[in-house]
C-alpha cells in the first residue's frame, strides 16, 4: 500500500497552549483511520492540519508525495475542493439550497458543466439512498440521517482521494449512526477513497481499519516517557 497522506513531527499551538506536540502519521490509499482521544487532546487540530484547513507551526504534511503545509491559502483551497471531501457533524449544507443543489455546488465550483454536475449529483443522491422526493427539499426539512446522507453525497461527488470526517454521526441516534457509517465506509471503499475520521465513539471507530489515540497532543505510543 502507498501512503496517500502523511505527516511528520507536527507541532501546533494556540497562543501558549500546545495542541499538537510532535505527531507523525501515515494513511494508505483506501485505508479508513479513526483518530480518537479525549476532548481537547488535539485530535480535531490533527485532522484540520492533515486536511489543509489550518497550517502547523512546524512539521510536514504530505499529500500524494507533495508537501501541502507550505502551500498558500488559494492552492490549499483548490486542493480541499478537488482532492478532499468533508463530512462534519453540523452545518455544512447551505440551508437555502435544495439537497440536489447542495451536492451539485462543489462540482459546479470545480468547473464541471451544469448539466453534468446535476446528473452526477442526482446519481450520488440515489446512491446514498435518497429518492427523487428528497432531492428538492431544503436541508431543514430533512431528518438528521437524511441530511448526513446529502453531506456524504456532496463529499463523494467530487471523487476525493481522502475524505475527512469529524464526529460524522455525532448528532444521530444509534440506528441512524450504524446506517450512516455503513454507507460512508461502503461508498469510500468502492471508490478507493481513504477516510480520516475523528470520533470519540468506540462503536464508530470500529468501522475503521485502524485507530490512533491522541493524548496531550501526541499519539499514544509516541509519547516521550518520563
Amino acid at each position, binding site marked *: 500500500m502507498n501512503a496517500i497522506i502523511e505527516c511528520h513531527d507536527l507541532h501546533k499551538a494556540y497562543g501558549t497552549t500546545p495542541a499538537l506536540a510532535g505527531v507523525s502519521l501515515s494513511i494508505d490509499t483506501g485505508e479508513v483511520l479513526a483518530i480518537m482521544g479525549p476532548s481537547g487532546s488535539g485530535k480535531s487540530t490533527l485532522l484540520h492540519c492533515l486536511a489543509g484547513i489550518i497550517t502547523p507551526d512546524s512539521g510536514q504534511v504530505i499529500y500524494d508525495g507533495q508537501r501541502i503545509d507550505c502551500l498558500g491559502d488559494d492552492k490549499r483551497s483548490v486542493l480541499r475542493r478537488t482532492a478532499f471531501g468533508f463530512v462534519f457533524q453540523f452545518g455544512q449544507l447551505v440551508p437555502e439550497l435544495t439537497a440536489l443543489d447542495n451536492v451539485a455546488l462543489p462540482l459546479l465550483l470545480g468547473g464541471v458543466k451544469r448539466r453534468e454536475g446535476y446528473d452526477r449529483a442526482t446519481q450520488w443522491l440515489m446512491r446514498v439512498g435518497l429518492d427523487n422526493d428528497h432531492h428538492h427539499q431544503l436541508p431543514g426539512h430533512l431528518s438528521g440521517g437524511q441530511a448526513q446522507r446529502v453531506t456524504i453525497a456532496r463529499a463523494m461527488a467530487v471523487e476525493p482521494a481522502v475524505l475527512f470526517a469529524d464526529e460524522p454521526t455525532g448528532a444521530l441516534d444509534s440506528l441512524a449512526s450504524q446506517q450512516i457509517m*455503513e454507507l460512508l465506509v461502503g461508498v469510500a471503499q468502492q471508490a478507493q477513497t481513504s477516510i480520516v475520521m475523528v470520533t470519540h465513539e468506540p462503536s464508530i471507530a470500529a468501522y475503521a481499519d485502524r485507530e490512533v*489515540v491522541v493524548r496531550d497532543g501526541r499519539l499514544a505510543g509516541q509519547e516521550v516517557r518520563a
Partner: protein
Amino acid sequence: MSATYAMLGLLEGQPSYGYELKKAYDHLLAMGKPLAFGQVYATLARLRRDGLVSEVPDTDSSGGPERTKYAITAAGTATLHEWLAQAEPSAPHLQATMYLKVVLALHGQGEPNRYLDAQRRAHLARMRELTHQRIGASIDQVLILDHAIFHLEADLRWIELTSSRLTQLKGELHR
C-alpha cells in the same frame, strides 16, 4: 490468579507483612469479597517458592511475636509488569480484572496508560470483528451482535474515563 498478582502489586509499593497485605487488599481490591488470611499466606508461600517474593529481615522492634515480612523480587516485578501491560482477551464482565490492573499499576511503579492502551486496542479489534460481522447479517444475528458491541463499548467508555482520571486517582492512592 488475581490474588497472586494482587500480592505482587501491593508488595511493589513496599515490603509488607501478611496482615498488612490483607488489609490493603480488602481496602483497595476486594470489592465486597475480603481475602481470607489462609489464602493470603498460601499465596505468599507459593510466590516465595517460585522466587517472586522473598522474606526480609523484620526490623519491627515492638517486642511482639516474630513475624515474617515479604518483599517483591526482581523476578516478581518482571512478572507483575508483564501481566500489567497485557490486554485481557475481550469478553463480557471484565470489570474486576481491568480495575485490578489499573489500581495495582497506580499503586506500584507500573504504567496504567500502557495497560489501558493495550486493552483499548484489544477491545476495538474485537469490536471491529463484530461490526464487520453485523454488516449484512440477518436480523437475529444483528441483535446479538449489537448486544455484544454495546458491552464492549461500556468497557471502552470506562477505559477512556479512567485514562482521563489517572492523575486524580494516583494522587488519591498515594495520599
